[in-house]
């Protein structure tokens, strides 16, 4: 499918997101290498560089290897570790999808933080305000409220971009700061603050609005919750929306070339507003999952950088919903392992951010990996974002 402007000068062919089939990818040598070898070598190289950094801070080789053993142990070494990996990955899938969807329409959503916060706050509000509702009413209600909270925070930049041309990067950055302050205020207001407390902490979410833990019957320390399936469902929905519906085609056409899409009769205004609203709702669900599934309350900074990590996850997943899931699982595993590593090998968890950053770089620049390991692959770098989207 492609669209051409009436005078024939501009033709756009949005990427249909399918690419070569999975089977084909496995059987064609170059694609096989791009798809599996490059990411594997990227992770390996990032870990080697991370190890060098650990050793530079005064650890011996044996201690460094112990730290990495702890990292592996903490991410996939036991059922409890896998549960932790999935728990960490859940919000990253949502924020990654949020950023990826916006990228597809040529928009850059730096506003994940604010959307996570607003979504989480509204979900918490619904979670403790209503009492006596059965779970099957209360929980969906709280989730919808969370999605709406994020959607509002995404709708504003979308509307302003579409109607006034106000740059979404500025507006989303500003909305992040506004959300941080608003949360600080709300958590000290009588509406939210827990009775008898002076510190900013919200009331506890009613049990009927908490996302059930999936494996708590095996071991209460396993925190993985129903939000994981919501996130996977969202990934499937976004894939379907982007690649199987007319609306999704319009999103991608506007992302590829707004002028051509406009010539073809699409409403760029509508697309910008809709995309940012959905992106906001996705990030809002990330916050919802955190407060309803993990924390059971809201406290300052519960967004914990999820909005920014979502950018890295979207980039690593090449803005493809299923790629985002894979990237979120990788990042989730590193986060979970990092916590274990910090507790058991005394190596700070901040190292994980360094390793994650290096992985993103090596995956984005396969030519670097090819140069280091002398493997022949498709070394063209990916272009996902569109600069300033102008």
């Amino acid at each position: 499918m492609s669209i051409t402007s009436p005078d024939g000068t501009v033709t756009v062919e949005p990427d249909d997101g399918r690419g070569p089939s999975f089977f084909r990818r496995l059987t064609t040598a170059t694609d096989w290498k791009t798809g599996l070898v490059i990411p594997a070598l990227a992770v390996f190289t990032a870990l080697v560089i991370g190890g060098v950094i650990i050793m530079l801070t005064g650890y011996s080789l044996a201690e460094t290897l112990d730290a990495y053993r702890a990292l592996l142990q903490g991410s996939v070494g036991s059922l409890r570790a896998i549960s932790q990996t999935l728990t960490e990955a859940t919000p990253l899938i949502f924020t990654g999808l949020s950023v990826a969807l916006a990228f597809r329409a040529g928009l850059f959503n730096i506003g994940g933080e604010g959307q996570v916060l607003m979504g989480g706050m509204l979900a918490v509000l619904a979670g403790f305000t209503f009492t006596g509702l059965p779970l099957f009413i209360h929980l969906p209600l709280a989730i919808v409220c969370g999605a709406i909270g994020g959607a509002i925070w995404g709708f504003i930049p979308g509307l302003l971009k579409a109607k006034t041309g106000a740059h979404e990067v500025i507006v989303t950055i500003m909305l992040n700061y506004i959300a941080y302050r608003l949360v600080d205020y709300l958590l000290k207001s009588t509406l939210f603050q827990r009775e008898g407390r002076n510190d900013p902490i919200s009331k506890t979410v009613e049990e009927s609005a908490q996302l059930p833990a999936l494996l708590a019957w095996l071991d209460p320390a396993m925190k993985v919750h129903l939000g994981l399936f919501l996130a996977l469902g969202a990934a499937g929905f976004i894939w379907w929306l982007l690649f199987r519906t007319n609306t999704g085609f319009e999103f991608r056409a506007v992302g590829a070339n707004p002028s051509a899409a406009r010539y073809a009769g699409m409403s760029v205004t509508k697309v910008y507003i809709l995309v940012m609203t959905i992106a906001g709702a996705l990030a809002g669900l990330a916050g919802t999952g955190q407060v309803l599934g993990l924390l059971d309350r809201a406290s300052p900074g519960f967004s914990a950088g999820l909005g920014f990590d979502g950018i890295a996850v979207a980039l690593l997943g090449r803005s493809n919903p299923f790629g985002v899931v894979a990237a979120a699982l990788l990042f989730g595993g590193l986060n979970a392992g990092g916590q274990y590593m910090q507790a058991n090998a005394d190596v700070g968890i901040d190292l994980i951010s360094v390793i994650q950053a290096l992985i993103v770089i090596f995956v984005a620049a396969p030519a670097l990996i090819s140069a280091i390991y002398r493997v022949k692959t498709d070394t063209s770098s990916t272009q996902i974002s569109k600069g300033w989207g102008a």
Partner: protein
Amino acid sequence: MSTFEKTPVESHESTGKRTRVLTKSQIKRARISGIVMLALSAFVMAFFIPNAEGVATFGLSGSGETIQLDALAIPVTSSLWALAMLLAALGGTQFVRGFQRRSTLILGASFGVFTMAMMVWATAGEKFSLISMLVATVSRCTPIALGALSGILCERSGVVNIGIEGMLLGGAFTGVVMGSILGGWVGLLAATLTGGLLALLLAVLAVNFRVDQIIIGVVINILVLGLTSFLTSQVLVENPQWNDAPIFPSIPIPVLSDIPIIGPMFFNQTIIVYGMYVLIGAVTFFLFRTRWGLRTRSVGENPRAADSLGVSVPRVRYLAVIYGGMVGGFAGAWFTLGTVGRFDENITAGTGFIGLAAMIFGAWNPIGALGAALIFGFSESLEQKFALLDIPIPGEFLAMAPYLVTIVVVAGLVGRARPPAADGQPYEKQ
């Protein structure tokens, strides 16, 4: 954004006087901004005037200055009425016929008038040291302006720099470590070089490997935040002597620093603030008045055309990006060597992103970015001062105000600020 401009609907050419042709959307925007200004006026009348009386006293001189100005005593009620009327007049005019080309300026000025009204109201019956707030404004605007300048240098050559935050943080970290060991000047140099090194990474990946530039910027931010936090917890906590750098003193410039108000504001600051003045001036000059600047801008707008005229696109981009990074690293030194002398995790706390916004707000122009940075610096220091006064507005809402104003102003006016045409696009020689 030119593709979204609508065609003009009416023309005033016949009047003889050169009138700007207004489009429908411009008229609508004039109406909306007029309403915003009228609303501000109504807010002053409804909330500030009934809740304040007496005299507001503003201190205009610090204790150590040679020329002492008397504190400014303002009768609250009458001055609030005057400011409200001024706002109403501006808003009414904007609504009815619009200030056209000057709409942006007038809308900005209205927020300024509103801020004045708020200050008068908050200070009613108390004393407020205006001068110390203005001094803090200039100091706080420095890292924002320099961060924006870093972005401008990169983006004028066509390389998007989302990594300003990382460059600031990296500069702040190496600045304090080298400053603690070898002294402040070496620290400043190390900070500058750190920024340059991070920019080199950006340049290599963007120019040679043609990696998506937004990815690189995001990576630089995560990498530097992770690395500095890791080194802080693993190394600096156990070696506090490496996290204890000398702070640059304020150096009064002879004669100039004796001018009332302006003197202490601009000419009794640290070397980093003076560096900011020099860099803003120098970059403006070099970008717009020299051959190097013309080449840099042409590479940012149309690299193919520049290439066909014999300009080396990679060389120009490398230089601009590395200079930009060095400016960013220098700005990072403000956080440690310029203020507290020690590094804490994520000490920049998003200033790089505010700098990014200031860059866009200032339409990729150094002077414009400085103006935007001053607004952010002003509101940051106003927030700090208001925390000391006993006023019924929660501090969080005051802290939100600058961000809200930025959104309103960006939506109302510079919404159509245009980035360099080739910004973010890798160049491949054919």
